[in-house]
């Protein structure tokens, strides 16, 4: 399919120099997205494209900047209680929601508590990820402008997670049913919703000072159609550009591709559970020396350049730069070293040339070129004598249940979202042996005991940093991941758009301008 598309686009490119490019509407940025918008309720949204649009409609207490720093938004200041479990935000004066209602501390408290209320049955990212990540208890308005967010235990990532929660007013939402709230957002942000043509487009109009008056988000599921709309001048920004279409966009006169080093960490996990230790190959990977040997067997830079169309540096752990361990070097591609280490670990080649067999599971079409990547990894492992049984499953029906039940493997391919503002949130996937995201069942106490120090409010910053770096070293040497890369994000833009995409997949257009 990819080859066919590439061929078609190469054919089309021959005709492109003759194009007279049409222009998208004036003072309007048109963005092409791949996925349908399903809701405008801040407590129900879980998809990145959907929340990117909503973030234009709803403001947050604080906001994460592209460089990872956290700056004020609705709140002008923050103080943390002595025991580290209360975050007190003071709001700016004179804030209003789009319907004119004043935005006060009780509105913020209502936003948080409404999302938490089990009666509402929300399954979005706010109750499902942010609240569970920060161990949210409740929110209380202390006075008109001060609101306190209470969490169960001190948590180094709580501030960043709170900064993700979009805020709305109380009265408007109390007056609406859940159905109505999902379709009629009454926001607090820079833009308001003026049109939602389900499955087609979302139109926003500026309510506060922003360089661009209108934002149009068009839903175009097919990648080649998004590219065609960009080349025709009908779209200014395209997200999720497939690597095979980069050349044709770059070669066109009025468009370019921006490659953002993304934060989604792609890795091969080793399932170390007792159950999987009984499976072929499951016993071999219990030995950290075998896991370390396999690191040398995979040529990650070649995978990046050949299959993903970008130059990458191999990851050294689960934390994105700049918070990764500064002294750790990426494992080089050295199949001879891999073979030597496997011999030393007691897994010598047998008469059939194989050291051991192992099942390798992956989902289809979730990550950039994922099928080709896992096939390449399989071949590289086979080259050093590991007989890999690659199983590629349908993402939604086959792979997700296995992953969520922590029963994928013994080797599995996965990506997990990352961030730039704190190393701890990247490490949070493995915050306990029993964590739902510890798909590996890894239980090394040198890692998991470290969390006691990281969570201790009495620990100094130096103690935390020392512990963190030691944990990352353990993860690098004996950890349960075969380190790969952070997935790049490809954005295509028209020449009239001035916009610098972020690393964290957030597309916030209030800073963008048009020529």
């Amino acid at each position: 399919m990819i080859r066919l598309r590439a061929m078609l686009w190469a054919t089309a490119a021959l005709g492109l120099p003759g194009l007279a490019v049409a222009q998208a509407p004036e003072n309007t940025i048109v963005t092409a997205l791949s996925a349908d918008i399903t809701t405008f309720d801040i407590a129900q949204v879980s998809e990145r494209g959907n929340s990117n649009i909503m973030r234009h409609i709803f403001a947050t207490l604080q906001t994460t900047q592209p460089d990872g720093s956290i700056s004020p938004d609705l709140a002008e200041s923050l103080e943390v209680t002595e025991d580290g479990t209360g975050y007190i935000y003071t709001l700016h004066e004179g804030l209003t929601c789009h319907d004119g209602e004043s935005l006060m501390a009780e509105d913020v408290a209502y936003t948080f508590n409404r999302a938490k209320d089990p009666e509402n049955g929300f399954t979005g990212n706010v109750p499902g990820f942010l609240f569970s990540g920060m161990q949210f208890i409740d929110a209380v308005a202390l006075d008109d402008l001060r609101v306190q967010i209470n969490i169960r235990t001190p948590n180094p990532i709580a501030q960043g997670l709170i900064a993700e929660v979009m805020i709305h007013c109380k009265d408007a939402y109390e007056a609406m049913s859940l159905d109505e709230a999902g379709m009629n957002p009454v926001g607090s942000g820079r833009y308001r919703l003026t049109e939602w043509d389900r499955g087609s487009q979302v139109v926003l109009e500026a309510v506060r000072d922003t360089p661009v008056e209108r934002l149009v988000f068009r839903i175009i599921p097919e990648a080649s159609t998004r590219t065609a709309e960009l080349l025709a001048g009908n779209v200014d920004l395209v997200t999720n550009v497939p690597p095979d279409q980069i050349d044709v966009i770059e070669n066109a006169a009025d468009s370019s591709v921006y490659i953002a080093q993304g934060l989604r960490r792609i890795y091969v996990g080793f399932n170390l559970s007792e159950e999987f230790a009984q499976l072929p190959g499951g016993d071999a990977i219990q030995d950290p020396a075998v896991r370390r040997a396999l690191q040398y067997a995979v040529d990650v830079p070649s995978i990046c350049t050949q299959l993903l169309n970008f130059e990458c540096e191999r990851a050294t752990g689960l934390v994105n730069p700049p918070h990764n361990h500064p002294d750790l070097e990426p494992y080089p591609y050295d199949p001879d070293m891999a073979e030597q280490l496997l011999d030393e670990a007691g897994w010598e080649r047998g008469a059939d040339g194989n050291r051991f067999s192992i099942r390798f599971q992956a989902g289809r079409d979730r990550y950039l070129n994922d099928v080709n990547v896992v096939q390449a990894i399989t071949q590289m492992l086979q080259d050093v004598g590991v007989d890999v049984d690659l199983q590629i499953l349908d993402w939604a029906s086959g792979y997700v249940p296995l992953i969520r039940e922590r029963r994928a493997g013994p080797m599995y391919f996965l990506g997990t979202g990352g961030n730039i503002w704190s190393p701890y949130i990247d490490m949070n996937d493995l915050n306990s042996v029993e964590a739902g995201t510890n798909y590996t069942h890894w239980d090394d106490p040198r890692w998991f005991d470290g969390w006691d120090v990281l969570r201790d409010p009495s620990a100094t910053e130096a103690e935390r940093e020392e512990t963190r770096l030691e944990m990352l070293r353990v993860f690098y040497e004996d950890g349960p991941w075969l380190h790969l890369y952070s997935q790049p994000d490809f954005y295509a833009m028209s020449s009239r758009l001035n916009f610098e995409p972020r690393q964290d997949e957030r597309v916030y257009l209030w800073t963008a301008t048009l020529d």
Partner: protein
Amino acid sequence: MWTFLVRRLLQSVVVLLGVTLISFISLQIGGDPTYLFVSENASTEEIERARAVLGFDRPLHIQYLSYVWDVMRLDFGRSLTFRQPAMDVVLAALPATIELTLFSLILAVLISIPLGIVSALYRGKPVDGGIMTFAMIGQSIPNFWMGIMMIMFFGLYLRWFPISGHVPFLVPLFAGDFARAWANLPQSLHYMIMPAIAVGSYTLARNARLVRSSMLEVLQQDYVRTARSKGISETRVIVHHALRNAWLPVITMIGLEFGFLLGGVVVVETVFSYPGIGRLVFNAINQRDIPVVQASVIVLALVFILLNLIVDLIYARLDPRVKL
């Protein structure tokens, strides 16, 4: 006639039960969909709570029977992703697909019948060869490929048609906003031409071949020869005598093809970013939004059943030999 209608009605109930059961089982084979609706970091308790909220904590047969009972009371459940009544979501997407399907069917019929007749009349001549080659190509080209090619050449290079999108016609029409519907019509057709050709090319090609073979058979019949011997004009012989009889198998096919086209719009709706029921179902299956899939299946099955009924009635009207 009434006996026939009652019998068909009862058959329809069985068909509806069958399709809902099959689609329900098909979706459940993929395992518990709860994981798709909770965060990666959700605890076991949160997953259990979400499972209960979504209704997946009950035994499968109870889930199905409960669903059937709800459907009998016209409660089709709530979309798990849109958090809206599932039938509302489906009915909102249906008009766009009906527009596209009807337009592509009309295009296919209007073009295929003359082509089939001309081909039959010039059997063995170059024009017949040309038309049949065209028909063979139409049947062979996958519609997604044809869609992409049309986007590149007619949308991007020649700029004759919009590359993607949709302007509604039926929605304002059904809402009683006739002025808006009328105003939208030219734009709506402009947006639909490329997707309609992509959807209808197979039907066009197949119908052209069907009309040709049917006409060839009818043109050999004694009554056509008799008509010609009476000195009736060739046009009248073809239109009133031959085509009237050759038309019958085509009518049957057209009825069935409307359902076929409804099912075939999935890929085309995706390629042209057309917000119809095909894309909705495709996404709902991927997201395991079972109520939306079930509601769509019921609607599509009803459309199919209704069309078959209409075809049968028309067939009986056109062919006096058929008794209902």
